[in-house]
């Protein structure tokens, strides 16, 4: 049924920006220098408001610009090019990378999935692993090294950048303001529509209804990340370039931990792990100033477990003897999760079109070989700003051709592009198995991308297939019944049955998932917005089991419906990681997922992630 037309406020600006992350930080920082005259040239003038400076507005979904989440270790080439005098101590929680280790973790429990080849490898390296059950690699390949780079808290970095921008007064950043969609007229993006406020969970108006405003702009800059609704809308409307697709994803879940006084890891230490809790799960631990550590794991979409739970895997990873010796007695200060665009350049969309340009992670800038995304994202923002300034100085419109000439060209000629090409297929081997993936990644890096593995498409195994040889069909059926009766996800029951020990909570670092939300993520949801997770076809959910959206949910916001069918969604627990969107295995007539992940406010409220 057609919705009745709602009368909306509208305003004109010059540039409307969607999402404030490192890419937008790079864009606005570079642009602002040309708006204040700091660049040495006359400030740029507004066309939307003649006589005024260029009107640049940025809308961010989260309730504060400091509420991002990422574990950042970066070479910081782009960031340092923007801030040549940068001293890490200017940014809270930042420091220089001084020590790097790559570590293979063996399974001290015996519960992880390890194929025959990996078991042979484990047996071979076991004598080197000692009681810590880990082997420190004697050599870190150059493509992984970040020595001399920076360890950052993305929340603090974004806040640091945002404060400088606001102090300059040239651009405005508005957190707590989700953008519903791009306004598209005649194949041209003409601005954005903000999300409606004063509505019920189902979107129906309340007496406080405030229709989302239309912000019309001659240029819309889209940097809303890998699961942002505006970027995905543009993909749907304009399609993807030939052979580009988004097959690889991951959930990154992290904590900021106050390390115990006994911990002797020096500031600037970077540890990357692989091999445990499942072979494909990579982990990181970065030591920041003030005895703080940023640590976490990545659960990739190619992990063929239909009951994957990032939170429990994170806890088992922390309890590994190699890491626990440093973490025992520590205290969680912060927690969070996000989706990572592991597709990198493979999933690069059209970077420009009439009236719009795309920057950052959602534009395929993440380098999946070097495991680096923030600096690349920042640099794409800088490149766009340089192009935009050029077009404004020449008085040229923001057409696809002009933006391609001034932004896309800069990007194609830069290290972001050349290194992104090398990395493009680096992770494809993981679709064939862990060892194939590891070898493929190594060879891709060492040959500069000249050789890379080929991906295979495998459907997610059923729970019965996943448990084959370890649990009988009858046991799996019993677990399914138990989960339904209790109204809980399957993952804990299955992991318990597969031999994973229960996590003993210490109330400080090892806490329940809900306490991680409350104490670490400080998750909140402001009233007056519609639910941003909607299940489109209840009948498709009815037939789905296990429901991967429930299993993967980083905040336990999506839970099984005791009455069956569509899962339940609790907005107040959602961290907006978006894993439900790409984990849903059920295509719909309109798209690849039965989960509609829309614009929404709230989420994490920690400034330390």
């Amino acid at each position, binding site marked *: 049924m057609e919705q009745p037309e709602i009368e909306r406020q509208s305003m004109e600006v010059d540039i409307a920006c969607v999402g404030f992350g490192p890419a937008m930080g790079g864009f606005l920082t570079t642009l602002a220098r040309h708006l204040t005259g700091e660049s040495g040239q006359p400030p740029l003038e507004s066309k939307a408001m003649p006589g005024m400076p260029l009107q640049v507005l940025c809308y961010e979904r989260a*309730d504060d610009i400091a509420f991002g989440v990422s574990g950042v270790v970066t070479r910081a080439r782009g960031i340092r090019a923007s801030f040549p005098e940068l001293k890490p101590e200017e940014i809270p929680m930042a420091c220089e990378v001084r020590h790097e280790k790559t570590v293979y973790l063996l399974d001290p429990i015996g519960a992880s999935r390890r194929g025959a080849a990996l078991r042979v490898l484990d047996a071979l390296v076991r004598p080197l692993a000692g009681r810590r059950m880990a082997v420190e690699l004697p050599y870190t390949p150059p493509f992984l090294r970040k020595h001399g780079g920076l360890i950052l808290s993305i929340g603090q970095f974004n*806040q640091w950048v*945002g404060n400088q921008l606001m*102090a300059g007064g040239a651009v405005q950043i508005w957190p*707590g*303001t989700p953008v519903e969609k791009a306004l598209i007229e005649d194949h041209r993006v003409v601005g954005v529509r903000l999300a409606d406020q*004063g509505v019920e969970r189902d979107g129906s108006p309340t007496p406080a209804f405030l229709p989302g405003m239309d912000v019309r702009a001659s240029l819309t800059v889209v940097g809303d990340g890998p699961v942002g609704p505006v970027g995905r809308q543009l993909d749907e409307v304009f399609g993807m370039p030939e052979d580009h697709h988004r097959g690889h994803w991951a959930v990154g879940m992290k904590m900021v931990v106050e390390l115990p006084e006994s911990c002797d890891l020096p500031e600037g230490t970077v540890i990357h792990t692989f091999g445990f809790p499942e072979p494909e799960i990579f982990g990181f631990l970065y030591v920041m100033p003030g005895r703080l550590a940023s640590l976490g794991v990545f659960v990739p979409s190619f992990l063929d477990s239909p009951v994957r739970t990032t939170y429990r895997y994170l806890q088992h990873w922390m309890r590994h003897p190699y890491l626990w010796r440093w973490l025992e007695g520590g205290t969680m200060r912060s927690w969070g999760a996000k989706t990572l665009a592991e597709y990198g350049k493979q999933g690069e969309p059209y970077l420009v079109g009439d009236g719009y340009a795309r920057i950052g992670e959602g534009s395929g800038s993440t380098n999946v070989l070097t495991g680096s995304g923030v600096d690349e994202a920042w640099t794409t923002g800088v490149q766009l700003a340089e192009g935009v300034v050029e077009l404004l100085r020449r008085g040229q419109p923001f057409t696809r051709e002009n933006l391609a000439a001034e932004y896309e060209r800069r990007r194609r000629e830069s290290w972001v592009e050349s290194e992104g090409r090398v990395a493009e297929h680096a992770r494809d081997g993981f679709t064939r198995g862990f060892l194939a993936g590891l070898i493929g990644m190594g060879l891709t890096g060492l040959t500069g991308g000249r050789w890379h593995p080929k991906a295979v498409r495998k459907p997610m195994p059923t729970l019965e297939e996943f448990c084959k040889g370890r649990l009988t069909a009858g046991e799996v059926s019993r677990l399914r019944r138990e989960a339904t009766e209790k109204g809980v996800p399957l993952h804990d029951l299955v992991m318990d049955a597969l031999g994973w020990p229960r996590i003993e909570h210490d109330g400080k670092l090892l806490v329940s998932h*809900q306490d991680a939300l409350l104490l670490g993520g400080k998750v909140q949801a402001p009233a007056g917005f519609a639910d941003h997770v909607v299940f489109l076809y209840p009948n498709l959910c009815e037939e789905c089991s296990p429901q991967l959206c429930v299993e993967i949910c980083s905040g336990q916001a999506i839970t099984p419906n005791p009455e069956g069918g569509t899962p339940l969604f609790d907005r107040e627990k959602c961290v907006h990681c978006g894993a439900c969107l790409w984990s849903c295995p059920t295509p719909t007539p309109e798209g690849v997922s039965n989960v509609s992940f829309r614009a929404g406010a709230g989420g994490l409220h920690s*400034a330390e992630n």
Partner: protein
Amino acid sequence: MSNGYHIVVCGSLVPDPLQALEPVTTPDGPALKNESMLPSVLDPWAAHALYEAAHLAKTVPGSKVWLVSLGPKAKLQQLMMTVAQKAPFEFVAVDGSASGFTDSFETAQALAKAIESIAGLDRQRLLLFGGCSSASRDAGTTVGMVGALLGIEEQFLAVDEIVPQEDGSFRVKERVEGAQYLVSECAGAPAVLAWATGNLPEPPNNPQVGMTNMRTIMPALAKAQPAGNLRGSLRFESVETPTQRRETRVVKDAGIDEIARELADWIRG
């Protein structure tokens, strides 16, 4: 009322209570650890005052709202990103500590001075709004002292409602002991209203309002005057946060008796 009210809201930032707050001792006295890196929010009591002021100004034609904030300039600027879309106001900034480890009287003096210097403010039409309490300086005395310093005798504390009348007078509902309300009639401005929670929900973010406010916010921040020493002769013996331990369980369909019993057991230890 023909000319409307001139409503000055005293309200500043407090550290976002969701963050990890830890008091530390510095050479200048107590402070919060890493205060500069903590996001801030508008003091919730002052926020109610601001929303009520905006509503009153909309109700009574000719009225105008100023928001006077005393806080570190850089933090005020960040705060405005989350406040400026909520309600229309003209911003007046005073650069000084908002840590809460300050003397209420010194703070009141700095605020009164800032209010006295507002160009175009008609003191006969002045309604001074603020929180009846504060999330960081919970003495509950500051706005009353600002009023006293400005010579305003009509003061109402813990206000939940103001109903303006045609003749410029207004009716005020104040919270008093025992969950009771005291309803008073006031002949009109000038008056001090220290707000409890009021009755209004947090307004939605209105981008148009934000754009308009921003035109006064940046100049106000640029010319913010330093507040000077706000600690006066105040000395703190010790500062600590209450200990807390959280053990959340998700329990569905628990009965009232069961919940009450568990709480009682927990209190008994």
